[in-house]
């Protein structure tokens, strides 16, 4: 079975194509943006609250900062936080889940109770708490989102490992005398990568949303322009200058939609039940 373009289109359908295209636009924005808008997105470049279409295509915000510049710089911050936080969460979750699933017994019980402790705390409230204790900087935001996001990954990987453990190839590898690390990382993990990838791609969207939510509440790095920050800073003028928070709001919505569609599409493609 090969992942040809036609197959992708047939299995993933228009949503996958749409999601991918949209995400490419966002990534392109993040990459090209700083070339089009060099300098700080915080620079005050014009009169405050100019509507879109004037000398600034997307208007200016409450301090006269270019919203288009904020949007492209914000794309970088949002994608960076989304991707890095997810990577960290996936790595933590995979390690804990793999060890728990493979080892079983007390180790499993201990690690799963630990996971449950994290799962029982409402994620967003927990994030607010962590950031309120530590200074909100971009690295702390990434760490916080990773801390609240890893438990589902751990549970998923553990479940996969529990079922893989009994399979012949794993028993064979054990019988051949491979050490445990080899069995976990070289034999078992590659066989449960597809669900992890699907979950991870959806988690990027969640991470972007959480970052936006935290920025909206003022818990973001004040030196970094992000979409959530723009929405939060603009909400006080929502009724007199709609564009200040509407434009970054649309950007968040579209990016999250794109990533969700992409994740759904990847799921469809990788799901063995849909394979033909």
């Amino acid at each position, binding site marked *: 079975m090969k992942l040809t373009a036609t197959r992708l289109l047939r299995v993933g359908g228009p949503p996958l194509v749409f999601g991918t295209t949209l995400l490419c636009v966002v990534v392109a924005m993040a990459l090209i943006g700083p070339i089009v808008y060099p300098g700080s997105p915080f620079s005050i470049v014009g009169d405050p609250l100019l509507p879109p279409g004037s000398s600034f295509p997307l208007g200016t915000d409450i301090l006269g900062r270019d919203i288009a510049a904020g949007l492209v710089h914000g794309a970088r911050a949002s994608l960076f936080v989304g991707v890095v936080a997810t990577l960290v969460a996936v790595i933590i979750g995979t390690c804990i889940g793999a060890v728990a699933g493979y080892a079983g017994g007390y180790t499993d019980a201990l690690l799963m109770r630990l996971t449950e402790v994290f799962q029982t705390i409402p994620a967003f409230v927990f994030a607010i708490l962590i950031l309120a204790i530590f200074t*909100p900087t971009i690295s702390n935001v990434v760490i916080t989102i990773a801390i609240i996001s890893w438990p589902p990954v751990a549970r998923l990987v553990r479940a996969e490992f529990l079922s893989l453990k009994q399979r012949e190839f794993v028993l064979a590898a054990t019988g051949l005398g491979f050490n445990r690390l080899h069995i976990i990382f070289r034999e078992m993990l590659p066989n449960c990568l597809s669900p992890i990838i699907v979950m991870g791609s959806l988690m990027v969207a969640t991470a972007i949303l959480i970052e936006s939510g935290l920025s909206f509440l*003022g818990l973001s790095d004040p030196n970094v322009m992000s979409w959530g920050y723009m929405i939060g800073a603009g909400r006080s003028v929502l*009724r007199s200058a709609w564009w200040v928070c509407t434009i970054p709001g649309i950007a968040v919505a579209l990016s999250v939609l794109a990533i969700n569609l992409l994740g759904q599409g990847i799921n469809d493609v990788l799901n063995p039940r849909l394979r033909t």
Partner: protein
Amino acid sequence: MTKLIDATCSRRTALKLALGGGVAFLVPWGLTSSALAADSPQSGGTMIFLVQPEPPSLALYASSSGPIEQIGTKIYEGLLEVDAKLQPAPGLASEYSIADDGLSATFKLRKGVKWHDGEPLTSADVQFSFMEVLKKLHPRASISLKNLVSVDTPDDATVVMKFSAATPYLARVLSGKDTPIVPKHLMAGKDLKNLDLANRPVGTGPYKFVEWRRGQFVLLEKNQDYWREGLPRPDRLVGRFIADAATRVAALENSEVHLAALGAIPAIEAKRLDALPYLNMSTEGYGSLSSISLLEFNTKVHPFDKKEVRQAVSHVIDREYIVQNIFQGFGTPAKSCLSSQFSAIGINPGDLPNYPRKQDLARAAELLDAAGLKPDASGIRAEVVHDIIPYGEEWRRLGEYIKQALEQVGIRVTLRYEDAATWTRRLYTEYDFQFSSTYHYHLIDPVLGAHRFFLSSSIKPGVPYVNVTRFSNEKVDKLLEQAMVELDREKRAGLYHEFQAIIADEMPSLHIHDMQFATVSNTVVMEHSTSGLGPYGPWYDLWIKAA
């Protein structure tokens, strides 16, 4: 819920009545209202105002919290009142005199004043209020009346206060807001911190307490036996609590409430509401707060240990821009380190150096050069961290503006935004900061609100809102100590002029703007800010105009 809204004042209720009671009801209502619509004060009606947030108690005698003051000042009264020009006026005391040496003051109580439960007010109540309650429980009065040693009561209607040192601002801290007179017969011999009276206040004021429904409203009704004949005018006052800001705005827009004061309506919404034909905005009545925004420098660490650097910052920031764009036009650029509200006591100086009207980057560069901060190859003179006071969005915008502004002269700024507890500890306990934004309440006299930020004796590690810049100047200490007891208005003004000139030069803190707050009210509410206390005034002359 009880129907609290007067039919004449709410379009919504009027509509409901029209729908429910038939159109016939609406016709006479329309006629009567047009017949009554005159500009002479009218009695009757219910006045509904927003109080935000809901207060924890109504113990005005033990708290200086804004919501408690908004409600409590209608129930309790002081010996004196504060007029529109922030000058003392007669209250429960019909006349008073202060001795030339400032060590004693005599007050004649008004005759026939009764508590809401019918007991007469006597000088014993006044004595008890000051000596047993206010000096011990009230956070501001315990400071402003520090020098009060005794209150004598030669007869039922005479009160004589004795002081250990002169108190130049005495007559201005005796209003119901600052020092309410409380009923001795309901408090004496009881645990003052745990009284039923705290939640069911009994005063002498124009309105009586009726009911407090938690989470919803406090209901007050007209005091029929009020000592001012024919006053107050409204039949009822209702203080409503609405937790959500957007709902509060909508309540004003729908005329469900008549008035919203400090904190209830976001500044930018106040401007928008002001544009509606049936709503008015006023910034009067907050003079006794004397709120001023500023940057505080750590004068012990690089680079703000040099006064030239601090002065340079003052030339870089555009105060007018800050007022207009960050604080939505609420306020005026600061011209000295003391609130402009102190013009009421004549201590505002003329133009001082280092408070430029406009940004002056050339002068700032000169000052930085003089301080030895030369630009390096990439044009950077210094790198600093700016702490943002964690009390709302405006301060974040201010931080972002300061970052942009200082980068124009080669000072690279990193912003730091922490939660209130961390910020307080960083500044006031650890002094681990370079400069931070903040705002101070200078209150009704510099002694009460401003001295503590400049005196060497106020450098107290671990105590919040004192001298955090650790600026220490013998001359300043001496001037402020003299001003504390100087009774002569002219001499006192001279002392403060000299003090402000020293601070303008040394600039341990850089004052940005005199803050203003908004009261938004329906056009049917008349005379709500006739006293200098505005929403914190007694509101006996307020009236509701029939629609």
